[in-house]
């Protein structure tokens, strides 16, 4: 089941903060976050596991509400390099371990 991401697009000035949300209708094992720049492969940012464990990027944080099957990615003091499309991928309970369902993405643009 494809998760729903919001907003679809964000425009920021360098140094501003942003929050990207991901919501699923299914119970989740984990939520994965990736960033993709135009014409490039998605790059791993963070995993949030059921039970609270997190692994990921130093300057990016995220939360995972297991009861609501929602995750949020927090980008603070944004830099020009943060520009790109952010995807969440969800790993569902009852589905094959490792199989990810990706949202449609949130396009983030950071201006100087």
């Amino acid at each position: 089941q494809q998760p729903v991401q919001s907003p679809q697009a964000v425009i920021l000035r360098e140094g501003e903060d942003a929050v990207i949300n991901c919501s699923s209708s299914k119970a989740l094992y984990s939520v994965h976050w990736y960033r993709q720049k135009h014409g490039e492969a998605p790059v791993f940012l963070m995993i949030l596991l059921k039970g609270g464990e997190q692994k990921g990027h130093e300057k990016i944080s995220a939360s995972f509400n297991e009861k609501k099957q929602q995750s949020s990615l927090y980008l603070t003091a944004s830099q020009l390099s943060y520009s790109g499309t952010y995807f969440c991928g969800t790993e569902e309970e009852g589905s094959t371990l490792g199989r990810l369902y990706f949202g449609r993405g949130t396009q983030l643009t950071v201006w100087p």
Partner: protein
Amino acid sequence: GAGVSQTPSNKVTEKGKYVELRCDPISGHTALYWYRQSLGQGPEFLIYFQGTGAADDSGLPNDRFFAVRPEGSVSTLKIQRTERGDSAVYLCASSLTPGLARGEQFFGPGTRLTVL
């Protein structure tokens, strides 16, 4: 170390032709995934290999699509009788064994397939 590699980077073919797309995963990664990404969309799951076997092929759109990983390393995605709707970027990713090391998936640069 070397990342996931995919060849060719671009493939242009005519409707009805057969194509093969290759993925070389990170050494030691037992899990390999194929995704398809259309413009403005997120990656869409196609198939997942654990070792040599397809653990989940439920994402393959129809029987024109087939994938193999005979030695548990390199994988080939095969598309028969290509259609214009098959045009997309085909991404491959690899990871350590899910469940034992619930880690990230490392993506390759993709193969852009254009069916004329």
